[in-house]
């Protein structure tokens, strides 16, 4: 689907710990003013899933069915 991000992010549960954007090997994620995650560069995302696996709050889900 056009315009859809590779990651599903449930911001309501994000506690701004910063693990996901520190661990992202491609720097596709970043923190906003409050430290909560957003996709700063979706094109760089390879859907490796390392952010999903290390988010302690289950905020991130990789949409594996779509590019």
């Amino acid at each position, binding site marked *: 689907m056009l315009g859809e991000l590779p990651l599903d992010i*449930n911001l*309501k*549960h994000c*506690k*701004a*710990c*910063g*693990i996901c954007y*520190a*661990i992202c090997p491609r720097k596709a994620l970043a923190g906003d003013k409050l430290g909560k995650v957003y996709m700063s560069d979706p094109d760089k995302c390879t859907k490796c899933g390392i952010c*999903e*696996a*290390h*988010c*302690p*709050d*289950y905020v991130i*889900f990789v949409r594996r069915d779509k590019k």
Partner: protein
Amino acid sequence: MRPDLQELFRMEKLPHIWCPGCGHGIIMRAIAEAIKESGIDMDKTVIVSGIGCSSRAPGYMNFDTCHTIHGRALAFATGIKLANPELNVFVITGDGDATAIGGNHFIHAARRNIDLNVILFNNNIYGMTGGQYSPLTPTGSKATTSPYGNVERNFDIPTLAIAAGASYVGRGTAYHDKLLKDLIIAGINNKGFSLIEAISMCPTSFGRRNKLGNAAKMLELQKTAAINVKAAQKLPPEKLEGKFLIGELHNKPAPEFTEEYDKLIAKLRKEAEQ
């Protein structure tokens, strides 16, 4: 969360109460993934815990769960397993819960080789009560009760479990989440006492006081300080200094307590009939 994992959680109870960057959430998911992948019957699975931040985990998991008293998770779990040996019984416990107040239950459950899957969340500290040192706080580390550095030596909990009689022992970390999941599955498949030490992190009460940086830095530390046992076998001892081993540390099947108990009952019944 991955849609296929949602049935394993009480989704309405999330987000959990753990602090930002607490490793416990990563470990809880690894347990859920392991249960899912192992294919065991969720309706025949019980998760028991004691008291502590880690022991809050079963409250978020969609199983028959038991949040018991401090240090006594293994005693409750022993009763559950003995009363109904066909249940898969998991124990979620912390380093304080399992090795301080619950230390005696720990060694005797291991000694009996009762078929329990114990996942010990080790964050090196009493997280829930604000950061007192535990028997797994490394020597020299700061805690509220060791402001100048811990003078005590810490347990190596896998070694203790092996010496006490556990038949399966492994160690993973929040960083090595896939390994952790695989170890938990191996523990499920082991008929006997399985101890999986899961290295967690407490940025709030341990990391900050010991200047270890934020949660991401503490995860990175797990990555750099851990060496897989298989790789370690090929390394000279000086290369292992300051490192800890991860992977399958012990796998030696032994007679299981509830099976031996049932055998004894069957034998005595037969004798009584004759």
